[in-house]
Each structure stands twice: as C-alpha cells, then as structure tokens.
C-alpha cells in the first residue's frame, strides 16, 4: 500500500489508497457498510493493514478500535499479507471424519508451514476453514489466487502434495 509507482524515487511511505477511493465513495456514508468496506479493501490489497484501517476510519468516521474489533471478530479478515496462493483447507465435519488432519499434515510436510502461515517465498498461505460445502467430496481444499479459485476433492496425502507441486512448477 506504499507508493505503487515502481519508478518512484522519493522513497515515500505515504500510503496510497486510490484503489479504495471508489469503494469509499459508494459506501462510506451508508450506515452498516463496514463489513462490506473491509471485504472490498481485503479484495484489493489481500489483507487489512493498520494503514488501511486508519484510512477507512478517516473516511467513515468509525473509530479505528471499532474497525479493528470487527476485523478480528470475523474469520474472513486477515491483518497480515498472504501468499500468492491461498490454500483454504476444509475442516468441516465430513472432511474431519474423512481425514482432513492427514491432509493438513501433507501440506505442512510439503510447504513447511502451519495453519495461518505463509511460505518464505510468499507463494502459499495455509488457512483452515470451517466448511467449503463440498462435503460429499471430503476431504476438500480450495486454492485461491487472483485469477482463479480451484477446488480439489477426494484428497489423499499424495494428491494434495501433487496439486501444490504442480503450482510450484508452474510458478518456477
């Protein structure tokens, strides 16, 4: 969120929220829109930085503490940056019964990260989620990136690892 201009010589650290401006224009003065604003901000920047929270506060008049309170209440919001690919590992009941813990183990072995962590190269973030609603295909994970949402069903340790290494190869 700092200066996006790659040619910038000024070393400025002034946060730039021009992308969020149209969202604020639409929602800032509509009561009850805080969650929507936070969702849009996260869509744009991938996470909610303190700078973003302060900016939203200025625009809406809602105190930063309250925004922080809402952002930390809902599991959807992240306060840290995430990797290029977000692995959403389903931990719903059907997935649990069918071995979601085993899949988590496989992902951890392959990427060396735990729930909520990001790989050092910034490629993957692992997030355990409550349920993706594809219970008949349990265990399931969804891998989200800016361009696509891909769901992988009937996972085994091997197929989970394979899915990840395929993405790795594609990115290499």
């Amino acid at each position, binding site marked *: 969120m700092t200066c996006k201009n790659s040619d910038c010589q000024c070393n400025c650290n002034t946060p730039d929220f021009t992308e969020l401006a149209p969202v604020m224009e639409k929602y800032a003065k509509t*009561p*009850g*829109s*805080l*969650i*929507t604003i*936070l*969702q849009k901000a996260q869509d744009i920047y991938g996470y909610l930085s303190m700078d973003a929270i302060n900016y939203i506060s200025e625009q809406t008049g809602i105190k930063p503490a309250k925004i922080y*309170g*809402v952002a930390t*209440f*809902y*599991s*959807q*919001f992240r306060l840290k940056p995430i990797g290029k690919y977000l692995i*959403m590992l389903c*931990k*719903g*009941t*059907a997935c*649990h*019964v*069918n071995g979601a813990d085993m899949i988590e183990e496989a992902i951890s072995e392959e990427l060396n990260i735990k729930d909520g962590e990001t790989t050092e190269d910034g490629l993957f973030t692992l997030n355990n*989620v*409550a*349920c*993706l*609603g*594809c*219970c*008949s*295909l*349990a265990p*399931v994970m969804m891998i989200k990136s800016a361009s696509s*949402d891909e*769901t*992988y*069903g009937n996972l085994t*340790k091997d197929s989970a690892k394979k899915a990840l290494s395929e993405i790795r190869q594609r990115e290499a």
Partner: protein
Amino acid sequence: MKVVVGQGSCGVASGAKKTAAEFEKQIKEKGLNISVDLTGCVGNCYLEPIVDVYDDKGGLTRYVKVQPDKVTEIVEKHLIGGAVAADQEISVVDKTFIDKQERIVLRNCGLINPENIDEYIATGGYEATKKVVTSMSPDEVIEEIKVSGLRGRGGAGFPTWFKWNAAKASPGKEKYMVCNADEGDPGAFMDRSVLEGDPHSLIEGMIIGGFAMGATEGVIYVRAEYPLAIHRLEIAMAQAREKGLLGKNLFGTDFSFDLRIKAGAGAFVCGEETALIASLEGERGMPRLKPPFPAQKGYWQKPTNINNVETFANVPWIISNGGEAFGAFGTPQSKGTKVFALAGKIKKGGLVEVPMGLPLKDVIYGIGDGIKNDIPFKAVQMGGPSGGCIPASLIDTPVDYENINKTGAIVGSGGMIVMDETTCMVDMARYFLDFTRKESCGKCNYCRVGTKRMLEILERITSGEGKDGDIELLEELAMKIKDGSMCGLGQTAPNPVLTTIKYFRNEYEDHIYNKKCTAHSCKPLLTFTINEKCTGCTLCSRKCPVDAIKGELKKHHEIDQNICIKCGKCEETCRFNAIIRD
C-alpha cells in the same frame, strides 16, 4: 438436442468446467448444432461430473463421472450416432438415489439452468408470486403457510406462519425480510445447492413472505465462502428485475419488493437471529437478549423476519400446490419434506430430500447405500455443532423434529454425517468443542470459558492423559454452559459431548482408564507393531523419523516402543499390510 453439464460447487470441484469446455470444443470441431448448457447440483455428488443429454423430444439420458477424456465417446456415440453410450450411463441402482426421494425444495435443482430465468418461468416459476400479489391478502398467505405446517428449516424448527404473523402484526411501515444463507453448520450444504441450482425459488419465497408481513425490502445474508452462490444470486436478481418480477409495482399492483445481497464474513454465531442482524448492521456479530424479538425490533430497530434458504424455497411450491398438499408429506407435527446432506463414511453421499418421518435406516441404507468399504455403521451425527450423535442401535428412529430431539440430537439444518467403527466418538466431541470454542462470540462467560475448559478436558482424554472424574466434570460443565448462555450457540454447544457420553460412555472410559482408543484413531493411544507379513524391505525403517524401527534386510523388523512417536509413517509406507495399529 442439448447437453447439460451439472456445475454446482461439487460438480466444478470434480472437474465439470473442464468437461463442459471439452464438449464445447468437440461440438464445434464436428460442426454440430448442439448447445452446451449448465445446471445446478442434482444431488448425486458422488457421481460428479454429471452430464445430461436431452433429445429433441425432451427425453433425458444421464451420464456420470464424465471426465474430459470420456467426452469423445459420448460425442461420437450419442451426439453423432444417436445411440446411448452405455458405458457412461448412470446405473439403474444409482437412479434410485433420486427416485426414492420426494423433491419439493430441490424440485428444479439439477434440471434447470440457474442462470436463465426463462427456464425457471417455464417450470411454472413466479406463478405463485403472481397468485399472491394479485389475488390473495397477506392473511390468506399466512393461513396457507399455517395449513402447510411449514417449520423453520434452519435449526430451531419454529412455525414459519407464526413468525410471519408476528412481523405482520408489529406496527410500522418499514419492515425487512431477511434470508439467512449463512450456512454455518460444517457438514451441511443444502442451502448452497439451492442458491447455486435454483436461486429464483428463494427469491420468490422472499417476495411472498415480504408480501405477507408487509416488507418492501429484503436482504440475503450469504456466506462469503460461497462465491458461486453469490454470483448466481446476483444474476438471478438482475434477471428478475429486468422482467419486472422484482422492484416496483409487481404484476401491476401497489406491492413493491426489492432484494440485496450482504456477504457474511465467516462467523457461525451469525446463524443466531440477533447476531445476524448485528452483522447486517456492520457490527461484530454478537447476539443480544430477546425480547424484543426481531419481529418487533430487528434490522435498524424495525420489524424484521428471518428465515433460512430451504424454508423460503418451500414457499412457492406451497402457494402453487396448496398447504394441504405439503402437509400430506411427513408426520402430523413435522410436515413436509426435509433436505439432508448425507456425507462422511457413506457410499453415496449427496443431497437427499425425503418426507419427514422416514426412518434413519431408509436414508442411510435405502438411499445412501450404507457405509463405505462395508465397515460396520457406528453413529450418525445430526445437527452439526449444536446436535448430537445417534448410535447404530437407534437406526430405526423416524427423522422428524420430535423423534430426533428425543435422542439428544437435533434435525438442525440437515447435516447427516455418517460414522463407522474407525471414527472415535471422543475425538468427534473434541472436534465439535474445538469448533464452538473458536466460534463463541465471547459475550457469556460460561460459553466463552466453559467451552475452552471442556475442550481442554477432551484434549486431555484423547491424548491419553484423562483422569478419573473427567466424565463427571464434563457433564457438570455441560449443564452449566447450557444454563449460563444467552443464545443457541452456548445452549447447544455441549450437545455433542452429552450425546457421545450418553451412548458411547465405554469409549470415554476406555480412553481414560485403559488408555485405549476403541476406534484406533487417537494417535497418542495407539501402539504400532509389525506382524509376520513383514518381508524386511526396510522401507518403513528408512521412513521412520525417529529411527524406532530396527531390522536387517529381508528379515522381520521390530518397532522400539520406547522410541516410537506414533506418527503412523510406517503404516502409510508399508506395502504388505504388516504394520498393525492397536
């Protein structure tokens, strides 16, 4: 001729998009004049991707598990040759999966294109709305719903007509109709399927409900985890608006009604009405005391009615066919049909809609075809984190609100997770408590701290450190949490523990006193040994992370129990089934 590819979330997850693209490519290459369409989930999730081929007379041939490499055969044999590609066709047995059901909520799912309003209208869609707004009074609508006996399908099972009537009776001009599409029960997906497969039936249900209670605005609160559902709803709402079925002066009357979507942000507690309202207002989703009920003071302090997706999807059918026709299904107290999400260790998982009162056995064995790998059936979990486990001995229990409540579980939103003998019931209780502990909003002490304490005890038991008195402590805590919590989350959070203690106390005792997990699933309680099938291939000893396996090449290996960390790597690696877990 028309090719229709099922593209609900499970279909897409199974590769339906690639299959559809392959059909499009081959049809274009061969120069055929056949359209490739999409539809929602038909319910046979275990057979996805599913492809339906309609001939010109409307006859249907259903193909299952159609991965892209199977497309050529169907194109050559059926689309060009006009003969059924028998190898890919759905089997007679699998067909009964649907034939044994009574479909009201899912009447259009998997049959129509959810992104094309004309297909919905062709099935008689929006006729019910027309009938209501042009020829019925709000009281007549409420009476019809009363006759039908429709009760809330989201969990509590409260009579729908009563809620609508209360909201109607509340003074004030500004009222809101809200749909709870925040399907939070991990293991239920019927609402997603309706949203993705038949969004107009929900829209219609909301218009009719809005008319009955006197609301002109509706809000659909959808889980953010359901992007496809939100996408299809947006299309459906735009198309309805374009046709004048949503917006001002519906069917030329004075009645106006419009809808908007609000994406939830992931909080199970938002299934509770007052928490949902707080979330709609952009606040933390924390419940408040009732009364005042939402029917008196809800969204922005205005009279508000909240129903769940499945409840609304029943409404147009009831209006079109009459409340009595709906009431003819089910039992005297639990009328109509209910959709269940059959998942877990079941052979044929998917969505099933059956009349209320059908025995559990008929659902699990009759429709679901029993347990995967024919391992003995142990229990079925109903009602998610608020529900409980029903043991195999009660498999003849009729599935309706009253009888399921008697077992200690609840019908809830309709999740049915089937478990076999390899599922540890103490671990299931731990799993649910872990869930409710995370999802507790923190307002009530007993829920916030109590679920954490219960979880700690359960973690202790599953890791082999259970103590005498733990079961009694769990029971005591459970009753206090139930009494000391304000909303449904806390009041029901101990249910998974209480039902598993009630029916599977021996498993708890095994864990605590014998340090054994009956289901051989809790790793810290396992002992891995090597039997006579060992060929001495050394694979396991090389994989073992702590060098606990000793033995010479081509000779029987042994596991040193003092070193073994019970990770199970040897069991995964062994190709000769020589590792025994006990």
